[in-house]
């Protein structure tokens, strides 16, 4: 899979800084995601992994640094050397390449599974209902939920909800899928079905950035793993390198704790 990293650069993060008041959350992050790559971000709670993901998607604006998607700045427009916030409409354009999956799914409870998946197709892409429903049905089939299209979120299990959320994000054909701890809110026995869908996506060549506590997934599916602590990237590389021979003491400690816990 390492040959994938020769592919074109999709996401380029440079010198990202973010603070909430005096508390620094991101302290100079540089990160690249290439087309077809699966990048897993691991690290202790509060290390800034989710904030990094949300900053890339511009859900959390950052204080300084740049995020480029295919060479274009995300969240800002630069005119005559002066940077200003993108308008809501421009932001939608900036983000169009991103699909996002949240820890708590955030399906819309008043719509059934199919309607959740087709909503953006209907109101953003202005697709006729029949066409949108066809795409939606295809997406639900992809995540193994064809039989549940008419069900409302409250009638679905956590794993099923998250799979609908994945289908919803995929429906608008994003170039990069951003996963924010997609299995952290799930019962242990439901984690597998979501990871299986993500593995399948990875195998199909989808570019993915996954913030996760699932070390097994990171070890087996990721092309590159990034270990974060206290707002910095401490180590990054192939999963075999990070999990097999961690260089930094902090990562060794993190992995030891994780191994002890998982016994």
């Amino acid at each position, binding site marked *: 899979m390492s040959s994938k990293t020769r592919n074109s650069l999709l996401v380029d993060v440079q010198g990202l800084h973010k603070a909430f008041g005096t508390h620094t959350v991101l302290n100079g992050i540089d990160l690249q995601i290439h087309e077809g790559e699966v990048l897993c971000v691991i690290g202790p709670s509060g290390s800034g992994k989710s904030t990094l993901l949300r900053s890339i*998607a511009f*859900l959390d604006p950052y204080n300084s640094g740049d995020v480029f998607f295919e060479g274009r700045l995300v969240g800002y427009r630069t005119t005559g050397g002066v940077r200003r916030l993108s308008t*809501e*409409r421009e*932001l*939608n354009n900036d*983000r*169009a390449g*991103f*699909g*996002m999956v*949240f820890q*708590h799914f*955030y*399906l*819309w*409870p*008043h719509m059934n599974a199919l309607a959740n998946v087709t*909503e*953006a197709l209907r*109101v*953003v892409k202005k697709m006729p209902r029949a066409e949108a429903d066809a795409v939606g049905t295809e997406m639900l089939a992809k995540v193994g939920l064809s039989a549940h299209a008419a069900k*409302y979120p409250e009638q679905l299990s956590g794993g099923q909800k998250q799979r609908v*959320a994945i289908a*919803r*994000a995929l429906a*608008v054909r994003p170039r990069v899928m951003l996963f924010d701890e997609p299995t952290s809110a799930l019962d242990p026995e439901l984690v597998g079905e979501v990871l299986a869908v993500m593995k399948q996506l990875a195998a199909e060549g989808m570019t993915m950035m996954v913030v996760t506590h699932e070390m097994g997934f990171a070890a087996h599916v990721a092309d590159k793993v990034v270990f974060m602590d206290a707002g910095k990237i401490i180590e990054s590389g192939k999963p075999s390198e990070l999990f097999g021979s961690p260089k930094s003491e902090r990562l060794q400690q993190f992995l030891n704790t994780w191994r002890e816990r998982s016994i």
Partner: protein
Amino acid sequence: MSTAEVMANYGPLLLAALATTVRICFIATAIAMLLGFAMALALQSRSRLLAWLARIYVEIMRGTPILVVLFLLYYGGPTIGLTLDAEPVGILGLSLYGAGYFAEIFRAGLQSIPVGQVEAARMLGISPRHIVARIQAPQMLRLVVPPSINQVIVLIKESAALSIITVPEITKVGAQISNETFAVVAPYLIVALLYWLVVEAVATAGFLVERLVRY
């Protein structure tokens, strides 16, 4: 004079008064809800100025008795070129007053929707207008039915204040009958009964709406 006698002698007048109260409250509720919803959106607007103006409006309306609002509009209105008959002034006053309360009810409804649902929509490129119309409003509607019905009932009862600016609604007509007949208990018992009828009708309608908006 007995209650039955008052009813017999003043039946048509009382019915007309009932109709006036219902008409006024219906129009005022509709305007108050629309204006209140606009205010709720303004309160959560990204524009600080807009949010601030809406907040001032809500605080003024919640902090002023309806009677004072009506007096200011009816007697103070002409000085700023607002010359209206008593009934339109009454409707306007009730609407402006009610909007302050509906704004807070709707704001609470909007805020109880997890922000993640809105973020998910934004990540899909769904416009702010569509987020309100298709994601927030439908869910908010379900949440705000019980407090809104409560607020409509309060408005119906507050509409009694319109009697002071001579609108011939239920309370005004009750007072008029009391003056003409020198009876107090009978006319006001009828007044109470009429309000109770309107309020119960609204409460019943409210339960039906509650069932309708369930999903």
